[in-house]
């Protein structure tokens, strides 16, 4: 494994560079746009929903931003990841390279995007009255690591499925939209009965968003069980993804 990583490091770097250049080269705003787009979403959501949900939720803009930040990372990484195999079919049908490289390089790009938005998020937190930066913010690295692994896992499953069935793209689009509404990005679930509130924990994205809100807004460190749940979702997804790649590794060739 270590030997393999060393061998393919150069290729990995070149792939990341390629994905980066392709994304930003032709837009004038370039990288700025990648920060601007979530900010615009945030602005519109804050404008529309503040009247309805903002009154019962403290620090509503930050609350919204937590949700948007993580959900757009998930959506960007998995949608890009889904296309990573098909998009590079011209390469892996001609040269023997590990196929997960394409997915990983796409995820690196999504991660960089996420970090840029995270920086803006922290500025928002500093500016917000009554929310100081605390040492406990370092714990945010944990849900970030978990969601990154989770994204890679989902990307593996999707990219494999997308090779076999091209309409996965549309189905996933609908699925992401539904998941967005179920992730409590702009509303607060405390109005629901307790049983229903627990159901939200079946949604991994909600769990990661909740972790962020606990640390940043509520100044509360989640329990060990909550940490386990975060890790469980990430590792389970990665496991399923790896299994699919291992099983279908040599079949992809016939479908592209």
């Amino acid at each position: 494994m270590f030997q393999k990583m060393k061998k393919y490091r150069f290729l990995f770097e070149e792939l990341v560079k390629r994905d980066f250049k392709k994304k930003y080269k032709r837009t004038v705003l370039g990288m700025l746009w990648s920060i601007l787009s979530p900010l615009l979403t945030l602005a519109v959501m804050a404008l529309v929903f503040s009247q309805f949900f903002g009154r019962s939720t403290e620090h509503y803009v930050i609350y919204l931003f937590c949700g948007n930040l993580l959900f757009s990372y998930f959506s960007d990484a998995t949608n890009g990841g889904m296309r990573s195999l098909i998009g590079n079919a011209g390469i892996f049908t001609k040269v023997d390279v590990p196929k997960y490289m394409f997915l990983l390089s796409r995820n690196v790009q999504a991660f960089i995007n996420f970090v840029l938005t995270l920086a803006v998020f922290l500025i928002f937190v500093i500016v917000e009255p009554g929310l100081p930066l605390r040492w406990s913010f370092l714990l945010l690295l944990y849900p970030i690591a978990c969601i990154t692994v989770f994204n890679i896992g989902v990307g593996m499953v999707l990219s494999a499925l997308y090779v076999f069935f091209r309409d996965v793209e549309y189905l996933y689009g609908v699925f992401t939209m539904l998941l967005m509404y179920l992730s409590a990005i702009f509303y607060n679930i405390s109005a629901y009965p307790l049983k229903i509130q627990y159901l939200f924990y079946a949604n991994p994205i909600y769990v990661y968003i909740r972790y962020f809100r606990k640390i940043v807004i509520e100044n509360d460190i989640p329990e060990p069980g909550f940490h386990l749940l975060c890790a469980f979702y990430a590792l389970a997804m990665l496991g399923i993804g790896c299994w699919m790649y291992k099983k279908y590794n040599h079949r992809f060739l016939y479908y592209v």
Partner: protein
Amino acid sequence: MILELHDVAVRYITGDFKEIGIKEYVMRKLKHNYTVREFWAVDGVSFSLEKGDMLGIIGTNGAGKSTLLKAVSGIMEPTKGRVKREGTIAALLELGSGFDGDLTVKENTYLRGAMLGYTRKFMDETYRDIIDFAELEEYEDRPFKQLSSGMKSRLAFSIASLVRPDILILDEVLSVGDGAFRKKSENKMREIIGGGATTILVSHSLEQVREMCSKILWLHKGRQIEFGPDAEGICDRYQDFLDGKFKL
């Protein structure tokens, strides 16, 4: 022994499964209209190559040449049998593919070098030679898609040959480019073989195969008809077969 194939067989599947959606898949399954055909694209091929050998693979369309090369280069896993390789391998299957049209010539060169398994340091050292050999000095920073198809294959050939792999696979490569470049690339090929690399050449030009190859593998419908160092003899018999003097 640098490359050894032992009774290699590859089962290929074709059928209606390409580019269909889940809906169509289910519908076809229900209507019993979903057919997948399996066939042996390569069946029972065994040969071995030494350092410095130049193998020519001949055979009509659909003989399984490209599939065999994919098994040799590790892109496909043989269904049966085994492939033993030693050293680095550079495969040039279908020229110009695997390049990215939006990246510049320079970026593509590095990307291709990385795909062939070389280090950044090595590419830094070799980059100038590659561009010089491909005669693309003026195009280094142009997007790849602006190049003519001849230029594209010149670049592909230059990268694959100048990085000095232990095994070099060329699929219909030498038949591209203008006369002058073809001459140059043939000379380069000889230099590589002289330098001890093992080369596999697929060409529809029997002349070229006769002239350059030290061993010949003749495939027909996936089966190995002949393999041996008697290039002239095998090529003669293949020519007779093409002329319809006998059937297989």
